[in-house]
């Protein structure tokens, strides 16, 4: 009886987690569509050290989302460089473009991490509403901490998704056990 209930609730929890993941992804896509016109700019000015009059002034280096059909894909982000063409030094320009490319790469990685973290928090926050306070704070809190560490370490989204499903499954199983024991204790007192 207990085992059956545990398995049933865990399965419901796992289905719920998958559904929430899909839903939060759709929400994220909608948010990104709304923010397509919003560019994130990293302002930077470059000054030629030897001769300031020959300086190539970079007015801005930044990344922005393209108006593509799949805006949720961080790979669709592009890099924009604005500069005043007052310097013929191509090596200097190449260096700036390389720097900009590195910034874009760092931005993509960070955007992916933030996106995964946001979705994880959202799914587990919804799930935590049905858990007892102790399970929520202790067990789900530990799972969340572990998942955040994995995201920071750059682990793949598939692994993170599996960890979320595991978190939902085990917290569901733990909740059943916890509640049965609490009921058993109160009955034995009576």
């Amino acid at each position: 009886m207990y085992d059956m209930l545990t398995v049933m609730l865990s399965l419901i929890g796992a289905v719920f987690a998958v559904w929430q993941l899909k839903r939060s992804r759709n929400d994220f896509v909608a948010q990104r569509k709304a923010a397509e016109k919003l560019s994130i700019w990293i302002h930077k000015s470059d000054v030629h050290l030897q001769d300031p009059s020959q300086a190539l002034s970079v007015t801005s280096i930044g990344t922005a989302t393209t108006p593509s059909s799949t805006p949720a894909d961080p790979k669709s982000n592009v890099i924009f460089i604005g500069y005043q063409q007052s310097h013929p030094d191509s090596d200097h320009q190449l260096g700036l473009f390389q720097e900009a490319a590195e910034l874009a790469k760092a931005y993509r990685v960070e955007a992916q991490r933030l996106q995964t973290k946001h979705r994880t928090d959202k799914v587990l926050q919804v799930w935590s509403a049905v858990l007892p306070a102790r399970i929520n704070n202790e067990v789900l809190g530990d799972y969340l901490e572990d998942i955040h560490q994995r995201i920071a370490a750059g682990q793949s989204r598939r692994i993170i998704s599996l960890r979320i499903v595991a978190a939902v499954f085990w917290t569901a199983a733990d909740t059943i056990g916890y509640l049965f024991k609490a009921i058993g204790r109160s009955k034995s007192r009576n």
Partner: protein
Amino acid sequence: MVHMMKLFIDHKAALLQALVAGEGYGLELIDRVKQQTNGAIMLGQGRVYPALRELEQEGLVKSYESDPLPERGGRPRRYYKLTAEGRRAATAQRNAVNGLFQLGWEAR
């Protein structure tokens, strides 16, 4: 290269030994056991928390909550530490296991 075989051990026993080194919370204790045994003993996260609660009900450990932490979505950590009875139980357990392992080697 030495081949390390996975060891099977009762979660409660492993946690009791892990707590001898000092207090800790679930995730930290799992990591402590893994590090100390070079990965030969891996405690499953799903079974650690019920085991810790059982140890607490048996009076072998006691727990308290830390302040809420942002990396846990504002949830506190629950730290466990051995009680005097828990320390005695851990020592007795260690002596028993040591005795078991010595038995085989002395007979050689």
